[in-house]
């Protein structure tokens, strides 16, 4: 039992959870319904920030920090960067939904079904571990992530991590090659 958790019982957890979840859902809906791409991007940022809040509630501050620094801070800036250079007037005239909406709904329904299935079958189990489990301990989150990734003995994701970074490197080079004729 971690003394810190015992000393600081989480405050108003359901309130924050439902609040953040609601923000996320509203943001997500706005992302696809807004015609103005910049508004969509702003909604997406809100969603991502709310998600970071949920990570914090899950005692995963490192992931939350990375979420903010990478998604909300880094990637979305580049998104906005590109969106701004596109003429907004033109995008306003374009059709917002294409013919694949049916497939989209099917895919979203399937994913939602999966979530519900997992939730119902594992309720009280792995997804929502009881209070006091080590994964609650904030102080070990950063080290935990690091040891999962890099530790020689317990690390299982080292290879996947390195492969992912290589993939990103290839993507960067590809983007440069495509965007610039003369380098």
């Amino acid at each position: 039992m971690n003394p810190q958790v015992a000393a600081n019982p989480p405050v108003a957890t359901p309130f924050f959870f439902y609040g953040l979840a609601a923000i996320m859902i509203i943001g997500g809906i706005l992302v696809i319904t807004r015609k103005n791409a910049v508004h969509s991007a702003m909604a997406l940022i809100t969603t991502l920030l709310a998600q970071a809040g949920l990570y914090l509630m899950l005692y995963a501050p490192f992931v939350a920090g990375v979420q903010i620094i990478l998604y909300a801070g880094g990637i979305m800036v580049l998104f906005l960067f590109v969106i701004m250079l596109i003429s907004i007037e033109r995008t306003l005239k374009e059709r917002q939904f294409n013919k694949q909406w049916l497939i989209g709904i099917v895919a979203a329904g399937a994913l939602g079904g999966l979530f519900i299935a997992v939730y119902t079958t594992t309720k009280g189990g792995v997804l929502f571990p009881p209070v006091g489990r080590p994964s609650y301990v904030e102080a070990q989150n950063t080290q935990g992530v690091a040891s999962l990734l890099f530790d020689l003995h317990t690390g299982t994701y080292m290879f996947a991590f390195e492969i992912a970074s290589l993939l990103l490197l290839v993507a960067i080079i590809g983007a440069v090659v495509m965007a610039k004729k003369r380098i």
Partner: protein
Amino acid sequence: MHDLIQYIQSYLGSDKTPGGAGNIFWATVYVLLVFVGLSVAVIAMNWLERKILAHMQVRLGPMRVGPHGLLQPIADALKLLLKEDIIPEGADKVVFWVAPFIVVLAAFTVFVVVPFGPTHAITDMNIGILFMLGVSSLSVLGIVTAGWASNSHYPLIGALRSSAQMVSYEVAMGLAVVSAILMTSLNESSTGTLSMIGIVQAQFDQHEWFLFKFFPLGIIAFVIFAIAMVAETNRAPFDLPEAESELTAGFHTEYSGFRWSLFFLAEYSAMIAVSSIAVTLWLGGWLHPFPNLLSSPTWELAFSFIPGLTFLFLGALCFYHTARMPKHPLFRIQTIGLAGFGVVLALIGVVLFIPAVRDRVGDIFWFSAKVAGFMYLYIWYRGTFPRYRFDQLMKVGWKVLLPTGLALLILTAVVGMRGELLEQAKGVFGR
């Protein structure tokens, strides 16, 4: 009622931050204190920048509003609040509205983890430094959206410039920060930490500021950070996003009045925020000079007098200038005002001698003094340097700072692990 008082008092003996102790009352008090303190700091910074810059440029600066222009920032603030709030015709109203708030929110939120002292922080997060970098990077969003929403060319170019600039300098900044974090773990006893308080504590434990650790690696990391932080806050000589001679005022060209003042506020609090990071990581945060050498009670007592003495000195300075004021009836109110200001400063100085206060503000004083040093550097840069061009700025960021930072990171790791590495080398070759 009694419970409440006890709840409030229960924190006082604690050696944790209010957030760490989970005391909501004191956390709120600290939030308010930091907010007010920051606002006062920005106002003071406004006045100081104008005065110091003026004296660097052989002129006087504000002299009319209050003695030596002391009330000038207040007059400015009033003017900005009363000014008409113009929203351009073709602007995207919602985004135009939201953008300044994003910037201000990002600039203020980072102060949640800034450690003014071992217990003087709103909270101590396990990921403190990561949180600071992450949240401060959000201000780019505000700048970009502000530039875009203005629906005008100059702000758009300014916004694009600043976003490109901030994103690229974040990389170099991050590398320098990582090398400092690495230093927290590279010794016999301590384990690494991302917590802001933990980092300062590590410097205390390791008996040196990280500025001097692994000489000259610490200094190089600090220099990289010091350059990157000027670029991050869009100040001279990296003030291209608001280069007035090229882009009139950059991303906030179309803003006026209150909304413009929010940008102003955000810029200065961001300057203070990044300076705080630098102070925390390399200059020993709240520690007074030579905390390990001069740690005897006598020295502690001597150091605890310095804040009070400083304020007394400032008060004396005010009295000196009061005496030098022209003896003309027109200047009477100004003279009285200056004397009054001196009295206030001296009183603060006296209050700082009270033992209970003395023991608590020492950390805050040293931290603020170090940050103030950086603020002075900002002003000095502005008075001295011409402005970089955009491509040169990018060149400095990507071709100089980034490789240096990477090499530095590797070198820090190698130097820090040299014992183990030698051991392993012996293991391999020694047989």
